[in-house]
């Protein structure tokens, strides 16, 4: 009687370990909540039916250990104000770059080890314009594809807003290796 239960328990534990390892190392799915990345990504509301209409994306974590991110990538990051919350924003600038804050005349140079993230929908986004450049260690993965809803399935492209960022040196991305890879 105990034999099949034990077998099931062992198999379940092994499957759980494999799933956890996959979501830690390879990538994970995320449901978009919030409008800060419109029109690139749309949110699902809190009730179940509307949740089905929200975008579900897959973000990869393979580039995470080496921090091989490029300007213009849509990334998943831990919020600097709430460590339990994940945010999805676009990576605009890396260390050493000069970034022009939209809607003001301020120019910031990004300090060492930090980056500047912004949502595509500037009016509704809580991002680096509010809390400043964030440490790159908060970035946990790069959004690669939208997997749901079916009519919005596709790649999430790397797009850099024109005229906002001045690079001090295109090849000085110490952390992201050479920017030649991003072009």
């Amino acid at each position, binding site marked *: 009687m105990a034999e099949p239960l034990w077998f099931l328990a062992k198999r379940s534990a092994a499957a759980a370990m494999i799933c*956890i390892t996959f979501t830690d*190392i390879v990538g994970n799915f995320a449901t978009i909540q919030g409008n800060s990345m419109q029109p690139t990504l749309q949110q699902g509301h809190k009730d179940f039916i509307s949740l089905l209409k929200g975008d579900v994306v897959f973000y990869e974590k393979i580039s995470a250990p080496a*921090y091989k991110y490029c300007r213009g990538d849509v990334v998943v990051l831990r919020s*600097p104000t709430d460590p339990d919350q994940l945010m999805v924003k676009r990576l605009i600038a890396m260390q050493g770059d000069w970034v022009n804050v939209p809607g003001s005349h301020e120019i910031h140079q990004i300090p*060492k080890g930090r980056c500047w993230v912004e949502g595509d929908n500037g009016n509704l986004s809580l991002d680096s314009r509010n809390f400043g450049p964030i440490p790159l*260690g908060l970035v946990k993965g790069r959004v690669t594809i939208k997997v749901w809803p079916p009519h919005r399935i596709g790649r999430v492209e790397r797009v850099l807003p024109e005229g906002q960022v001045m690079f001090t040196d295109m090849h000085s991305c110490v952390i992201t290796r050479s920017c030649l890879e991003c072009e």
Partner: protein
Amino acid sequence: MFSDIARKFCQVFNLFCCVHVFHAHVGQLHYVVGPSMFPTLNATGDLLFLERFSVRFQKVNVGDIVVACSPENPRVLICKRVLAVEGDSISVLPEPYAQDAAKNVLIPKGHVWLQGDDPYKSRDSRHYGPVPYALLQGKVQLRIWPPHSWKKF
């Protein structure tokens, strides 16, 4: 024969997954070198056991020693003591020599103040500001090596 190889491969793969889950979610060993936490930790190197639950469930308190990703280089891990958590106000000496230049810093939401025990040798929050809580990797619980200085923190 191929089924034997496949079985062995599955066992090794399962073992790898179990080790990864323990390492990433339960506890890790870290070899920490550097003078910033002298005399609590040796400058020549200590093998420390970190546990991840405290950080995961936000049970890190003032006075804990933690390992975190450096805000200046995410590939580098730093080992410092938590001197203040969000909402606290801390009086900071930017330079340990200048006693009359103290300034008050209010720790913002979601951040902690990290400082090394040796203020003369440590590069910490006095230089790069409060550190987001999400950069913390683990809380130091035990020193395992060198064996004669085994210690629970």
